[in-house]
């Protein structure tokens, strides 16, 4: 059986079905997207994080109203690096230092009495006040969390009232942290609720749809890109150069009114196929708009993405030209990194899709992925991982900290691509790490971003610090007190 029992899991054998060594002859899908074992030191976050942090947060011109006690809101204030170019004014002559979507944190600050008597009045008043304080906002998304989910506030009702009173778009994203097993539930909730609300809105206010005369035959929507560290600044021009028009990005640096027009495009190009493919499916089912899956990481995959998109519109020739030009731009740098990085062994731990997005990218750099772990992947992610992996790769679903440690200590990878929490764990073991969620110094997507990614990997592996980790050489040591 390809499933393996790690030593650290002796006492929780149920983890065995989440962990396997890939064998193409006997390919398996682990138990996934299931409940976390309490106390197993999981790295997973909550559904609210998926809705507020991942998808809602990147939208540029809305107020993210967190209906919660202060903590849930504080934790999602400016943390993920989903950047935007839309800035409020700080003074009459200066724009703010951070973009609107990361500059403010709006929260209803639920107190004990609100928990007892319900928080709807408070929410309503907060929303109205927020629109008065931030008249520049084009809309609002109200997020619920465990507290407000548990007390059962009717936030949709409040949203309708506020929309009526203020005249701006008000959406709700009800995905309390405890409503699912991981962030993934929040992605799903956001997708379905947002789609439903956009559809209803378009019926209610047809003027928000794209006017016929504004449409072109080359309109696409890029779904599932969140503009981490300005990925979009390298991705968007590529699509424009091949001759398509990006009407909306779901949801990186996007204006809410453009998102209402998502449904008016000819093709949906889906990058993150875990957090956002749902909405592409729904648009396909509801409006017959096709979608295509792409990866925008690495040279080959980015090229492939452009080819796929171009093929849909008969723009193949232009695409080839763009690709050739882009590859020429990065060739020198890539040659440098290929030489330095060839043969290095990599372990990846991310949310899910990036494991399979990055397997080929690592191979392009001559490196080998020896282990992959996912926080919230589903069956289809593991199918994709299996399809791209070499035999012998260790795969862990929803790893807990102990498992990651055992993985690192037994496999001793040359580099550990991980999130912020785990990166410091790897470092304590002397294993180089690169922050793969928000990046070290992005963008990492597209052709140009690939060079940044390779650079950060190179810096990780070749930093002189690793030479000094073994203590003072040849020196008698006195025992410490501890």
């Amino acid at each position, binding site marked *: 059986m390809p499933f393996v029992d790690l030593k650290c899991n002796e006492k929780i054998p149920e983890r065995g079905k989440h962990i396997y060594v890939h064998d193409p002859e006997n390919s398996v899908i682990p138990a996934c997207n299931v409940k976390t074992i309490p106390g197993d030191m999981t790295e997973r976050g909550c559904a609210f994080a998926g809705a507020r942090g991942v998808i809602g947060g990147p939208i540029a011109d809305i107020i993210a109203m967190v209906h919660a006690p202060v903590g849930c809101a504080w934790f999602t204030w400016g943390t993920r690096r989903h950047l935007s170019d839309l800035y409020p004014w700080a003074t*009459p002559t200066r724009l703010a*230092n951070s973009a609107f979507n990361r500059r*403010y944190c709006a929260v209803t600050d639920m107190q004990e009495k609100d928990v007892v008597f319900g928080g709807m009045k408070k929410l309503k008043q907060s929303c109205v006040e927020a629109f008065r304080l931030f008249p520049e906002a084009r809309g609002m998304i109200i997020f619920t969390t465990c507290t407000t989910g548990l007390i059962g506030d009717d936030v949709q009702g409040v949203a309708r009232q506020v929309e009526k009173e203020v005249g701006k778009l008000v959406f709700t994203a009800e995905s309390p942290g405890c409503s699912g097993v991981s962030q993934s539930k929040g992605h799903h909730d956001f997708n379905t609720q947002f789609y439903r609300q956009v559809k209803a809105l378009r019926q209610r206010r047809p003027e928000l749809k794209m006017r016929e005369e504004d449409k072109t035959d080359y309109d696409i929507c890029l779904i599932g890109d969140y503009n981490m560290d300005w990925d979009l600044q390298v991705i968007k021009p590529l699509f424009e150069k091949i001759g398509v028009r990006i009407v909306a990005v779901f949801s990186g640096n996007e204006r809410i009114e453009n998102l209402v027009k998502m449904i008016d495009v000819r093709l949906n190009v889906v990058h993150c196929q875990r957090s956002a493919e749902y909405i592409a499916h729904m648009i396909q089912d509801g409006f017959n708009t096709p979608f295509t899956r792409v990866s925008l990481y690495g040279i080959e995959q980015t090229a492939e993405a452009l080819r796929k998109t171009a093929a849909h519109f008969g723009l193949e020739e232009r695409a080839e030209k763009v690709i050739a030009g882009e590859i020429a731009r990065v060739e020198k740098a890539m040659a440098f990194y290929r030489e330095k990085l060839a043969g290095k062994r990599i372990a990846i731990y991310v949310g899910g899709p990036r494991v399979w997005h990055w397997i080929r990218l690592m191979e392009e750099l001559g490196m080998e992925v020896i282990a992959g772990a996912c926080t919230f992947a589903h069956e289809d992610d593991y199918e994709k991982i299996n399809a791209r992996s070499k035999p012998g790769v260790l795969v862990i679903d929803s790893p807990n900290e102990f498992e990651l440690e055992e993985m690192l200590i037994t496999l001793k990878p040359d580099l550990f691509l991980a999130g912020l929490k785990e990166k410091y764990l790897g470092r304590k073991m002397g294993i180089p790490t690169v922050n793969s969620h928000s990046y070290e110094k992005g963008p990492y997507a597209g052709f140009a971003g690939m060079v940044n990614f390779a650079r950060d990997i190179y810096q990780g592996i070749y930093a002189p610090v690793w030479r000094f980790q073994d203590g003072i050489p040849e020196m008698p040591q006195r025992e410490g007190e501890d």
Partner: protein
Amino acid sequence: MKLTEIPVDGIPYDHLRIEKIPVTPAFAPRDPELLPASSRVLVVNPDRICMPIGAMWAVLGIHRAIPFVQGAQGCTTYARYTFSRIFKEPATIATASFHEDAAVFGGRMNLVEGLRNLVVRYWPEVIGVVTTCSSEIMGDDMTSFIGEARMKLQAEIGPERTEQIAIVPINTPSFAGSHVEGYDRAAKAFVQSLATDRDAPTNRVNIIPGLFYPGDIREIKHILQEMGIESTVLFDISDTLDAPLEPPQSIPYYPPGGTHVAEIKGMANAAATFALQLDAGGSGARYLERKFGVPAVVGPVPVGVVATDTLLQNLGKATGCATSPALRAERGRLVDAMADTFHHTMMKRVAVFGDPDYVSGITRFVCELGMTPVAVSAGTESKNFAAAVETVFSEYQSLFLDPPKVFNGSDLFEFEEYLKTLPRLDLIIGNSKGVDIARELEVPIVRAGFPIYDRFGYQKRPIVGYRGAELFLYEIANAVLDHRYPDDRTQQL
């Protein structure tokens, strides 16, 4: 991006050419009616987090201790993330992983199973069970759940091994207070459950540092060592959250250091308890006083000359120990540094914000430097804070033409909008959440307080004690110089 070739070192930020797009064509002032936090229910830019993270901070300062958070995963994962952002260290914290069923049936199974799973894999010596909003709303009965978990453990690993694990419940519903109170409740909970006997009084002192950083705790320990005082630092994060990189690292990862359970047990025998922050830890000190007659010395926050003097005097009174020549020299160097710098600090208009104790401590120090505080803001409402800054202001009346504006429990939005109305401001002192404000007002910011995540090293540089104050002073003075003297006039200072 007009680069024809991407250089080997990638695309730097400035080559990305991101143009800032204004969200409205022109500046419009914010609705003045809604600027005071007291005039609205909405909170914008809170300068406080929730109770559990304060309690988790505390537990992480105990040797081989793991916080177990009774709630859904986010409350834990976000906190771990926050610790890693601040300390650049791993933070091992377990969660009960509430999913939908727990929300319906309560968190009993999650706690019982969760503690079991944690114990048999990690073998911690201490578990701090931290509750969250959800477990409190559902009314989880922690005492009975923990009892059940203990029984389960006894059956599996035997009574003896179960006995060796201290499990301390800390009730921290966030809707009832901030991280400051979370720490405070943890302090009380730990002494209450572990320091149960005053059987052999000693001349040791207890130190409850509050939300001070590793660098501060090391400075306090240095003072104690110089005075020859033995101590128990309760919640000693100075090693646990500032661990060296020296593999091989055994797994599961436990950082070195932290307060040992035996030390906490001995706290009832101490000569006195010093709570360095009034709101974060004071309850622990007062509990020991009430219950065992261990005198509680709560505050003042030892930032600056006088507050450090007071700390030393109080330590001396409690133990009969004296200051050392080294400490006196440190004080002398601090005073010397103040004499060297006052032309650049005096009459500079400064705004201070953060946790109440940080702000009251720093406010006193900047007054000692002759600076003029124009606005001080505590993100968590606090009576101690109000009283402390009032005392400072009355002592230093000569520094002010107008009385400084005091915000108590307000949000940073109100604070920032107020600063924007001031005719002049020279410096802001506060945590990382004030960086935007400082940049927009084009004034320097000196980072201090909780949390600082956007730079390296602040968790290691002390601001307490004479040496800490001296370092802090240089940062303040140099920030003023950097900002006001961009040319070569600083060739003679």
